[in-house]
């Protein structure tokens, strides 16, 4: 990159549209995002604000690829080039999710029988997959797994997750305990873009403070963060900017009758 070239924001969203078509309801169309534009710089935390039903979670899910945007662009800058996410193949999405995009949802999707430790360690191992043909019991993997688990233990300790739970599958954990596993999974691998959908719901004050610290650390590493925080204290602590999906003519285009006017 040339020196005089200005650095592009990590994420540039342009005129993004998302509409759901409910085929089981006579093909009713549910426009949720109509022309969202947003820039997020490295080291910045943009909080999406506004009443529910405005499409905050929908935008986050489009950015993670779980929802398919209908029109517009989402340009993510990587170390060497930009990727237009709306055009990314499934293989590309999976590769981006392994290393570049992390997501903390509201709830942990637990995998039966896998310990909390490994639910999170898995994310570290996925980022550096074993070469094809690697042996099943090879020492390299054992060492990588040990190192990953050690890193996870440190994070669990920071999140005050009782050590007695670490070896157990999270399915039986309380909501707050599961959410801390989920947070650990989202934060353990440094990403370029971090997506947070109410990460502190169901956490107590002490753990909310830990999450605030983790978000601050991600920002100072240069991560671009997009989050939904209903907890205003957390939002005020981490957000460098608040963006309302409800604000601006482009964002508040009048929808069909079933949508309350903005």
């Amino acid at each position: 990159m040339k020196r005089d070239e200005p650095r592009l924001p990590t994420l540039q969203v342009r005129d993004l549209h998302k509409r759901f078509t409910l085929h089981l309801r006579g093909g009713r169309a549910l426009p949720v995002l109509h022309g969202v534009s947003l820039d997020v710089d490295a080291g910045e935390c943009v909080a999406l604000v506004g009443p529910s039903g405005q499409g905050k979670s929908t935008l986050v899910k489009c950015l993670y690829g779980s929802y398919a945007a209908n029109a517009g662009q989402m340009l993510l800058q990587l170390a060497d080039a930009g990727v237009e996410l709306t055009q990314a193949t499934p293989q590309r999405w999976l590769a981006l999710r392994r290393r570049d995009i992390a997501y903390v949802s509201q709830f942990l999707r637990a995998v039966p029988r896998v310990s909390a430790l490994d639910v999170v360690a898995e994310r570290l191992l996925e980022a550096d997959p074993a070469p094809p043909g690697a042996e099943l019991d090879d020492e390299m993997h054992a060492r990588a797994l040990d190192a990953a688990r050690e890193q996870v233990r440190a994070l669990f300790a920071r999140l005050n997750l009782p050590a007695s739970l670490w070896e157990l599958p999270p399915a039986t954990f309380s909501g707050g305990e599961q959410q801390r596993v989920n947070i650990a999974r989202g934060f353990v691998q440094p990403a370029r873009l971090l997506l947070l959908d109410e990460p502190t719901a169901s956490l107590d004050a002490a753990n909310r403070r830990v999450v605030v610290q983790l978000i601050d650390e991600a920002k100072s590493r240069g991560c671009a963060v997009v989050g939904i925080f209903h907890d205003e204290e957390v939002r005020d602590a981490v957000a460098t900017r608040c963006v309302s999906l409800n604000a601006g003519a482009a964002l508040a285009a009048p929808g069909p009758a079933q949508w309350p006017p903005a």
Partner: protein
Amino acid sequence: MTPLLRVESLGHRFPAARGDAWAVRDAKLDLYAGEVIAIVGESGSGKTTLLNCIAGRLQPTLGQVHYRNAAGTWVDVHRLAERERRALARTEWGFVEQQASDGLRMNVSAGANVGERLMGLGRRHYGELRGTACEWMRRVELDADRIDDSPRAFSGGMRQRLQIARNLVTRPRLVLMDEPTSGLDVSVQARLLDLIRLLVARLHLSALIVTHDLGVARLLAHRTLVMREGRVVEQGLTDRVLDDPQHPYTQLLVSSVVSP
């Protein structure tokens, strides 16, 4: 990136079918190394027929199945001589049947079931074969002390794990699975799914899994294909197909289960 498997415009019509009844129509699919694809749909949607055509067990009426072998050469699965296809099925491919008894040899011991593919590759040293069989029984969480037992003495879940060991012992590159967990108790299913998930990730396997269970697709598959009346009506990232289904039929499937 080059795929490992390429299915081109595949169609199949059973000879006895009436009129325009195609079991599979115009199926296209690329599978990449390390990728797991689930094929979902209700009974009669053509998913097992598609799998059997891909496996080379059924000659498709139309279209081709190309596979890039370990030597890097593309082969047309349906133009291989029978002997070559068998060799491929025994070495680079695995097939996990819905009914373990169809995939196992029920009249020989568990250990012999695991060792058979190795023997097919020319391994003859008894102690070594037995050692490898023990190791694989442990990997699939079977008691290695039962190596001399007949699979008939095993429960459904144990048989299914034995079938997986039998397939994976030669470290195949591609594994095809037909409803590997249906017919098992829910608790046994979870254990088996977890095992498949672990082995697929650790062995960098590519897999095609036919299932009617969206939960299985969610847990195991990177990508999901939805079939209906012989056609692939939707395909994409598994979470996208399940969370933002586009086709009316996929929306119906997703809305019909409690928690996919």
